[in-house]
């Protein structure tokens, strides 16, 4: 029964959405595909790593954009063979891809291992410190960051036409989404959720709690690294400002807009963010009410505030509540079942819900 429900409900919706996205280049304008949707997939992929860590590990990370940036800088240094910036190693682009992902994952493991003994607000602050240190490191060590960033970064020939970058984003997004979902049901994923809910009990059962957290952080860094690669191929450049505190918070905001407890919310949040960034200023008479492009961050702030007030579970949570009301006002039953992250205030699903009422 459960499998049938999945096949007829969520899975079908997902397959339909992916099919729609696969055929989108034939349905929408080039700009919408290559700018709006490619950017959505890149930011969604990066934000999904925040959601993964929060949802399955109870860890809200502000270091994911740093991982994103490390991959970009490493690729730029390794792949460029001329110009005035970076190490100019001139490696084959695919070797550079492997190098960038390897370095990013290793850095994520080291940082994850250090952070693995903290939870909640302390984890959040520590990862914020990672982000700030990372920014200043790239800003100061100009040999690997430019100086002033690395420009003229070309993507591998295989991804030549812009639409292929869109498809690369789509494939990686599907893989990341499915991978995170599947992982949540593996022994490692179940143990990770156990660590999230009751680390003391898990430790007493013999689980290595810090190692589970460090491995989850590494996996998130690995995926964020791919998002970083897509970003430098899309932007053509990366500079320290790309990973400064502003964009770091934007990535968290994207995850919060979508909902920190649902993976699909990462892409939904990114879609809303890019839509607002791209089209808000084009609305008729929008400037007459004081909303200009210079007020974009204010508008995003108001949207986040409104969403947090209406639903701490983000847009996906709002959809759930609306759905609950249309089914007879039984909102209590339809409401999500958040519990506070250990030591923190951001909600995540309970282990019981993910495990169907069982415990590992």
């Amino acid at each position, binding site marked *: 029964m459960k499998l049938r429900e999945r096949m007829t409900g969520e899975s079908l919706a997902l397959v339909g959405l992916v099919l729609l996205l696969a055929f989108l280049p034939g349905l929408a304008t080039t700009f919408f595909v290559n700018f709006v949707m490619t950017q959505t997939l890149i930011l969604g992929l990066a934000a999904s790593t925040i959601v993964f860590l929060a949802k399955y590990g109870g860890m809200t990370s502000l270091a994911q954009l740093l991982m994103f940036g490390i991959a970009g800088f490493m690729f730029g240094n390794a792949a460029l063979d001329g110009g005035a910036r970076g190490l100019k190693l001139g490696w084959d682009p695919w070797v550079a891809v492997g190098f960038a992902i390897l370095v990013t994952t290793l850095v994520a493991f080291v940082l994850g291992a250090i952070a693995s003994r903290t939870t909640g607000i302390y984890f959040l602050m520590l990862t914020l410190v990672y982000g700030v240190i990372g920014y200043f490191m790239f800003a100061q060590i100009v040999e690997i960051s430019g*100086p002033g960033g690395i420009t003229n970064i070309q993507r591998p020939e295989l991804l030549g036409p812009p639409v292929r970058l869109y498809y690369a984003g789509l494939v990686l997004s599907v893989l990341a989404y499915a991978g995170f979902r599947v992982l949540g049901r593996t022994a490692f994923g179940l143990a990770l959720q156990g660590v999230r809910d009751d680390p003391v009990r898990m430790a007493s059962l013999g689980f290595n709690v810090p190692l589970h957290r460090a491995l989850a952080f590494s996996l998130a860094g690995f995926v964020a690294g791919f998002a970083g690669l897509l970003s430098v191929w899309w932007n053509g450049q990366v500079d320290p400002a790309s990973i400064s505190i502003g*964009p770091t918070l934007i990535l968290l905001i994207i995850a919060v807009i979508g909902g920190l407890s649902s993976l699909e919310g990462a892409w939904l949040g990114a879609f809303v963010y890019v839509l607002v960034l791209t089209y808000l200023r084009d609305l008729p008479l929008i400037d007459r009410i004081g909303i200009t492009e210079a007020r974009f961050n204010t508008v995003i702030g108001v949207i986040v505030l409104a969403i947090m007030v209406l639903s701490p579970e983000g847009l996906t949570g709002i959809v759930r509540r609306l759905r609950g009301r249309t089914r007879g006002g039984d909102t209590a039953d339809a409401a999500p079942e958040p519990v506070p992250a250990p030591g923190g205030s951001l909600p995540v699903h309970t282990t019981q819900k993910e495990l169907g009422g069982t415990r590992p």
Partner: protein
Amino acid sequence: MSRLKRQKALALFTSAALLVVAGCSGSGDDRAGLPADQQTSAGTRSGSTSGDGIRLGILGECEGPFGGFHEDVVAGTTLALARFAGATPSSKTSALEGFSGAEVAGTQIELVGIGCGDDTADRIVQEVRRLVEQLGANVIIGPLSGDEGIAVAEYAKANPELTVLAGISGSQEHTLQVRAPNHFRFYGDGAIWNAGLGDLLHNKERWDTVAVIADDYSFGHTSAAGFIADFCGVGGKVTHRVFPPLGTTDYSSYIAQLPNPDEVDGYFWAVGGTGTQAALEAFINGKGDLTGDQHAGNLFFNPDLAQALGTGIVGAYVGGFATLPPDVRSPEITEYLAAADATWETIPGSLSGNEPAAPSVAAAFGFFYGYYTAGVALVKALEAVGGDISDLDAFHKAIAGLTLDLPYGDIKLDENRSGIVDVGLSRLVQDGSGKVTQETVAIIPGVDQTFGGTFSPDTPSPGRDFPACEERELPWEGKAIPVTDGVPQK
């Protein structure tokens, strides 16, 4: 099906519906074009929207350290089109409202959008893509700042069907290294603007040692590079180089890295935007009062500093910029400023604190003027090709071959399509009423980007360590044209 599953399905369908609606309602042409694309241009290319005339996008900055200049730069281009292409601004009190009616040799110039940068390359790339790929711009004027200029030049290189006339971005790299054939700069770079300043300080003011403090980004590096090449070229020594990040608010730790006033003959400042005053205040707190005879700076050193910090700064030397201080007047300059005042009633430019003021206040400053020169270049190039942009190579060749007769001096382009310009050096002085003003002291004519052979496409981009402090011959050493009471003595 469980309720939760149905809800998730609904969420997915909702996002899909949003996606379709947004996608189908998008506008713009179907040309591809990403910064990382290298498209080849074989044979004669044509403007992507030829037949539609010029679809102009202006790249300004509405956020970040230079966000206060957004109105100024859009007004600069608008004034050029108002003077020479019959444009009528849509508002008498703001250039950001756009214009209509611009036409040259039968070709209409339509403003399709104004981009909003924040001084970062990421943001300006997104803005230029929005203007080109969504709104269909085929000519871009801008951007304002150094790193932005490099990013937009790279974008131009990857999109040869586009024409970019740089706004006032002062980094060296975007013309000397990137060298996109469809990218043009009708003003000098940050290094050019300091040509002759080191010569003046070393040989006239007898400075032998200097500490340099500059913003840690491409324009700060370029500005410092020009001063260092000039000062060291004539025999001076740069003892310290300090580079605080752009946007720093607390400069105390960077001031601490500078030598004390009794350890050097002077300081050169290339800290700009919102940082200039903050950095000088930190200097006063850390090193003592400012004394004008021990300080020099680039374009961000101006009389406003005296209002904020006191008249101790009087006597400081200032590198050049795109315009000249108000003591130099010519019929062309007077006519240009009068035209600005006739085009709008007021403009809320940065020099008036973004409060309404006479448009000539903004027009006299280089940010406005750089975008003005780009607008004039666009008009003159269209006139040269009879309004026909169907042959893009011919259009670009016409732009590259222009010599513009401009209010603050003629400008022509070098082989990398960067401006060869006259540089006006100045000094902060007190007038009879005690008010601090800027007075021109010398003009260095015809400075190009190679800086007397110091820089080339093969040299590194200006940075924290480049150029080295080396003595070398500079063509203008000892040959500056003195200016007395606003009149060049030659």
